[in-house]
């Protein structure tokens, strides 16, 4: 082997060796004993799978069930990596819709595995519980998954005249839940029709609300107030039945989706009876 080839082979061998030495497993280790959840719905999923005891910290917004309120908080949109490290977790679980783009790099640097779970649609909730439960080795994983699957199946309705429903997440300007969202999925299975045509969370036109008022307007009970909804409907001259719903149940794709669907069915049934 002549000079340059020798150099290349040696250099390649060194790089391969270096890569092998430095390669870190990014998948969760076998026995997870300590976990940090970075989203309220992920916290609820871990609890539903039967691993509440393994949670050593959560994001600032996790507040359900009551017991997780007292756990150490590691931040909001930008979690504090130092605090995460200090809690010595074996695994960090985040939701794909709320994960900071640099979080994986930051956790890689401290050799902490990160599990990112997709939960943006209703159909993703049961698989998410399965995935989290399996990664954490939770005892009630399969029963939690079937509870959700059967629970949602039970809430499935076909309505002869599907009421048009608008879900207002903010009133000034009016932001609504559009198609291809978790809320839209809840409407689909309970036999309601989303009054919004656009996808995502668009700003909705006041005159569209005035010209084609929905049959029902739902709003999250924490961020939107009844006077704000009244003002909006007055502005649009729209006579619409407005109902406040539990914000955390209706905006967190987690184990309580069955409660959201049941509540929605109750509201829709009541509306049908009165019309």
């Amino acid at each position: 082997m002549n000079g340059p080839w020798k150099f290349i082979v040696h250099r390649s061998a060194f790089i391969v060796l270096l890569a092998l030495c430095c390669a870190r497993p990014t998948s969760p280790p076998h026995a997870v004993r300590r976990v940090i959840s970075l989203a309220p719905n992920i916290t609820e999923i871990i609890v539903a799978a039967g691993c509440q005891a393994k949670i050593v910290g959560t994001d600032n917004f996790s507040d359900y069930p009551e017991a997780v309120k007292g756990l150490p908080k590691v931040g909001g949109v930008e979690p504090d990596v130092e605090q995460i490290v200090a809690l010595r977790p074996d695994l960090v679980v985040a939701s794909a819709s709320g994960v900071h783009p640099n979080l994986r790099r930051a956790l890689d640097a401290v050799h902490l595995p990160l599990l990112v779970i997709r939960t943006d649609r209703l159909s993703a909730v049961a698989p998410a519980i399965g995935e989290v439960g399996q990664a954490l080795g939770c005892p009630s994983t399969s029963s939690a998954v079937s509870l959700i699957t059967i629970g949602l199946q039970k809430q499935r309705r076909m309505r002869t005249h599907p009421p048009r429903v608008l879900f207002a997440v903010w009133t000034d300007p009016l932001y609504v839940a559009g198609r291809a969202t978790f809320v839209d999925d809840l409407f689909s299975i309970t036999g309601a029709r989303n009054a919004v045509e656009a996808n995502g969370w668009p700003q909705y036109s006041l005159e569209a609300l005035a010209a084609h008022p929905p049959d029902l307007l739902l709003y999250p009970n924490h961020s939107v107030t009844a006077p704000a909804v009244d003002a909006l409907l007055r502005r649009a001259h729209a006579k619409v039945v407005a109902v406040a719903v539990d914000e955390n149940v209706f905006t967190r794709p987690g184990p309580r989706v069955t409660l959201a669907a049941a509540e929605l069915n109750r509201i829709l049934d009541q509306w049908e009876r009165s019309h």
Partner: protein
Amino acid sequence: MTGSSRPRRIIGPIALLTGGLLFALIAASTFGAAAVSWRAALAGDPTARAVLFDIRLPRALLAALIGAALAVAGVTFQTLLRNPLADPFILGVSGGAACGAAVSTALGWARIPGLVSVVAFLGALAATAAVFLLARRREYTDPTRLLLSGLVLNALFSAVILIAFALSPQSDLAAAVRWMMGTLFGATWSDVALLGVFVAVSMAILMTIANDVRMFAFGVDDAKARGVDVERIQRIGFVVSSIVTGAAVAVSGIIGFVGLLVPHLIRLIWRRDFRVLLPLSALGGATLLVLADLASRVALSSSELPVGAFTAILGVPFFLSLLRRSR
């Protein structure tokens, strides 16, 4: 230019821009997300009446007033500071308003209707006062110091806004974003009346000092030599422009581009005399914002896009073509 020839020279442009504004207002009240007709509204159809008279018309008129307010403030700042980059926002007026809006959102006040607007207006006024105190040097307000103070205060406001956003409840962020993006959503007749008073009074005051403001184009010393009370005129011009900007921003949030470029557009087409520039800028700003708001409403069927994007989309090609043609 003599006093007798002035009216004739500006009658043409004023008539043209007034026609343009009327055309824009008719278009803006004819098209929208809801398919309703003027005929149905006049025949008494309640939905058509609600859409046309209570939603579309006040919104179109409010857009006109905000466009006029921003353009009037822009042309005044540019002339007084003799700086083509000066606009209602560079002196920290918008930054102050946005800061007020962001902080009140972080405090959870966004759920009380109207409160954020009031705080935003106060923020704009406080920012203007602060910029003036910082720029004051003995009896004289130095334009460079004024611009620098505005720049520095804007940086401070940005910092406060970022912190306020980080501390705001996630569910209330829409209210804060409303200010940063600017929107005419939910315009009411009382907004129109209130801002109408601000714009009318500001225009009247600025027209009375227009002849003196015009002298600033020759430089401050020259203006002084021609007998202009530079200090007084500067003070009146800045304060009036800031108040009218603050009122506009309090209603709609920050809508960019109008205040900066409408005066330049007018200068490129017609003339540089402030007495002519002022009313023409008002009409031009009003027309541009009415058309931009119309575009933001009808671009998608029942959802809306940020109006600030459309002021630039409509104005930039027009401006660039004029710039190319003018040597």
